[in-house]
């Protein structure tokens, strides 16, 4: 076991510093040579490491239950161990099944489903061409249609995988930054959001120690929330460094939660808007949180009115981190912003599933590329690539067996003698 810097083998970019454990077989869990990387839990780190691993030839995510099965095959599991693990895997796969189901109801699910149908049909038609074209009524045009379908699908998949921000946000999570002057309750806000029982929380120190990062599931969207140092002209060198990093974070934020002290802001909309503008980069989507609302007196009404004013005031709410008043409204605003940012109403898809998906989609796209390369040379090899693509997509949308393919063949063609 060793503490090591973990780099992307392709770009040499450092991804994290973490523990690397080597278990030589046969004394590992599965009996095979195994390596474990213990990395920080932030989705950015995780997805970075997984993506880098996924690019290594021969590496793929394990199937549900695969580690246990491998261990079993090697005679490594005693019964008590297997007992517990079976239940664990059961829970895991059940959860995955439910997750997948939930996901399949969304727009993204429908998209995957459509791809799956397109690909299965293309495969079935190609199989029909192989098994029947010679002395049956399966004509050459079928092959041209398969080519077109595969080309179209490869393009769509490629675009989906590289759809820049939107796909990234869905896969890696929305980076939201809490920013504001010192002592307005930024850390309290972070803790408050973490304590919501509805939110899934995995706190972890970020790669820079002064930024605290947590992963949240807000109304189904994956969010990476960072708490930053208070923004001011600091004199202490350490604090100055912290502020500089906070500004850096702000520049890269997908969403800013600007926190101001409700007792110290002007109620006049233009002035309030200007106060936010001095904190937040101009183009960044923003939610204004006026904290310490419990300390407000008569000016509360005017502020509340300003919050619903609209531009130049961003979506805003009064909040008391102390009493929790206003948190519902804040979550509602967050949900609206996230929906806008992510586009898809992606219901409850934790980021882990997403990374698996992107890996399988990537493999599927690669296999579709392989189809094009083999098409002219050897139709059998080209079909093999489509089968491979189908298997990868099947990991997301469900298994398709030989009989399903035959069903399509007999539905679409009059074959046989």
């Amino acid at each position, binding site marked *: 076991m060793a503490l090591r810097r973990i780099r992307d083998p392709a770009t040499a970019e450092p991804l994290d510093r973490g523990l690397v454990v080597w278990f030589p077989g046969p004394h590992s869990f599965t009996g095979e040579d195994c390596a474990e990387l213990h990395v920080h839990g932030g989705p950015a780190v995780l997805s970075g490491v997984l993506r880098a691993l996924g690019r290594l030839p021969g590496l793929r995510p394990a199937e549900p239950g695969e580690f246990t099965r491998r261990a079993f095959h090697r005679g490594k599991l005693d019964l008590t161990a297997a007992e517990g693990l079976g239940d664990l895997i*059961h829970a895991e796969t059940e959860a995955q099944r439910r997750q997948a189901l939930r996901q399949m109801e969304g727009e993204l699910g429908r998209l995957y489903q459509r791809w799956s149908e397109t690909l299965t049909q293309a495969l079935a038609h190609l199989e029909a061409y192989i098994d029947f074209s*010679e002395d049956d009524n399966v004509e050459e045009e079928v092959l041209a249609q398969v080519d077109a379908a595969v080309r179209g699908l490869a393009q769509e998949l490629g675009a989906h995988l590289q759809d820049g921000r939107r796909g990234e946000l869905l896969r890696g999570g929305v980076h939201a930054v809490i920013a504001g002057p010192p002592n307005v309750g930024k850390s309290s806000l972070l803790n408050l959001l973490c304590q919501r029982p509805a939110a899934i929380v995995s706190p972890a120190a970020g790669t820079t120690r002064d930024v605290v990062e947590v992963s949240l599931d807000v109304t189904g969207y994956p969010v990476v929330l960072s708490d930053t140092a208070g923004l001011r002209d600091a004199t202490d060198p350490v604090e100055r460094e912290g502020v500089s990093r906070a500004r850096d974070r702000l520049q890269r934020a997908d969403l800013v939660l600007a926190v101001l002290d409700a007792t110290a802001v002007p109620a006049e909309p233009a002035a309030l808007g200007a106060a936010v503008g001095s904190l937040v980069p101009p183009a960044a989507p923003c939610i204004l949180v006026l904290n310490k609302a419990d300390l407000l007196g008569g000016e509360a009404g005017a502020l509340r009115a300003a919050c619903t004013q609209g531009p130049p005031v961003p979506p805003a709410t009064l909040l008391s981190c102390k009493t929790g008043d206003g948190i519902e409204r804040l979550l509602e605003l967050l949900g609206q912003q996230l929906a806008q940012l992510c586009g898809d109403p992606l219901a409850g898809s934790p980021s882990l599933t997403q990374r698996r998906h992107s890996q399988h989609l990537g493999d599927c796209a690669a296999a579709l590329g392989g189809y094009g390369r083999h098409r002219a040379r050897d139709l059998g090899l080209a079909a093999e690539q489509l089968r491979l693509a189908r298997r990868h997509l099947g990991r997301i949308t469900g298994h398709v067996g030989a009989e399903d393919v035959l069903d399509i*063949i007999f539905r679409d063609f*009059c074959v*046989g003698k």
Partner: protein
Amino acid sequence: MLCRGPWRRLALPPPSPGARRAGSGAAPGYEVLVIGGGHAGTEAAAAAARGGARTLLLTHRIGTIGQLSCNPSFGGIGKGHLVREVDALDGLCGRVCDLAGVHYKVLNRCKGPAVWGLRAQVDRGLYRDNMRKEILNTPLLTVHEASVEDLLLTEPEPDHPGKCRVRGVVLGDGSTVHAGSVILTTGTFLRGMIHVGLEKHPAGRLGDQPSVGLAQTLERLGFAVGRLKTGTPPRLAKDTIDFSGLEERTADNPPVPFSFLSKAVWIKPEDQLSCYLTYTNLKAQQIVQDNLHLNNHVRETTKGPRYCPSLEAKVLRFPNREHQVWLEPEGLDSNVIYPQGLSMTLPPELQEQVINSIRGLEKAKMVQPGYGVQYDYLDPRQLTASLESRLVQRLFFAGQINGTTGYEEAAAQGVIAGINACLRVRGKSPFIVSRTEGYIGVLIDDLTTLGTTEPYRMFTSRVEFRMSLRPDNADARLTLRGFEEAGCVSQQRYEQAVKMKAALEDGIATLKSLQFSISKWSQLIPEVHLSSNRRSPMSAFDMLQYPEANMEILARAIPEPLGKLAEWRELSERLKIEAAYEWCVVNQQQEIEEVRRDEALQLPEDLDYFAIDASLSTEVREKLSSNRPQTIGAVSRIPGITPAAIVNLLRFVKNKHQKAEKLKAFPQTDKCLPGNMYLEKAASQQQISAELSEEEMESTFVKTPV
């Protein structure tokens, strides 16, 4: 019917240990007995005899051994693979085809060698005569003409599942024949019923009687029985057909033989016959639609094959288009043409009208009408992967009786059943071909694990490892195993396969050792368009992957050491194929290993899935119970079985295994179950098809003699 079978003794208490000695081992008679002389029966009988078993083949008529009941052709896409594999196990059909073909054609030539379909039109008479000659000249194999009415049954062996054991058969004349194993290959003869128009009469094939007594016996024993249908087209007089203006399809020159043993086929390439293509038109469709009321076979709901549809099925499902009709010669000197694609069951006079509506057939004379056959088949999930029945020990089933269609599918099962019937008598472990080893493995695994509700036909699309299981390498996959494990392969064939295997390995090693830079290769073989930008040197084996490259070109560039390899034509062709598929086969290796590992994990034959203490849902238990998978690999192919269920099942089996090990320290209790328990087990087998069109079938298990 005669009911002399001692199966009536099933309800008796378990026999004393001494009774077992009276079993087949000591009994005179045959070691293996095969019922049926079709494609499954002939291969089964010959394989058992090759394995060294004293074998008896019983058939209604010796004259119909090797009869092609339907199309006058062998092989095709997927089916050609099966013929090659049967041949690799030293089976008969490939060699006989090489003595009987009149039009050899490799289908899918342009789609890659993995999916090439070896096919031939064969001369019916030559095929039958050569097959009969093979069978009658096989050492240890006796052939008798007789009808089989019943099975002789006795108490089961304690160390195998099954409620009783077969020890022979009762013939039509009441006499009995004893045998160590019995193989049933009765095709469509179990309660066979021929349909033409509104007429129907019992028959297995036109002119041959069905087997009714056997069907009743099997049913009584608790076998789940279903009903299937198939059909055959009318036959036409060749000299009444106008071939001018029809599309001609000529045969391959040179013809590619089916058998690894054949250097060439019997016929001179230029003497081969042609096939012709014509099409139906809307007139034929009109006739079919106007006369549906005269067509019992089509109206009934019994399952027919989707891929061998009757003309009626085609025009009903895909109306308003032309359908292909291939005019195939039935033989060199035959005046009969087989119109493939015109299978129908209309009354004969209407069949003639349909025929005469087709271009080229306007004046064609029908020499025999098309007809439909409906027949019983047994749910193949009642069989193990060696094709032995789980209900009746030492009773094997092969061919159409298991729900398949096609000569090649039947032959493939026949070889496996023959080998295993022989091994069973010898007390040796069964010979199983895995899905990763051959189309035969896929066929039998699909049948015995998933069953079938329509006549099952082989397709390449059913095969997961299609790139590895090719027609060219069937010998490398099966011949060595067949010789070493099953003893069903001749010394000569074995030596030939060993020699080829060694030559391939040496050849690949030599090719891989010749390494040059890409620019050097461009100079050496300018005729090959090299598109790689690889910096590292590339081998001659890499070069061979390019479509334009072949051994001849390479040998011209590097005569030493490649010249010698290129001279051996068959080796050169196989090296080229190996090179083209190497990366794909290597990529699939891990997957193949996984499948093999799962297939190696056997599940107990007699597992009661409803009783076992494992965390499995009722739905999963039901699926496992009706499919009765034999290995964890088979479990994973049953639709709807979750990974969690597989892990739980693994855990249970391992647990049970460990307990059994511990128990070995204690004296064994008698494992013989009383008869009524067998009957309960039998009753849990469900009737698989609700579409019984003729008589209502009763499953009565408690029997009274007639």
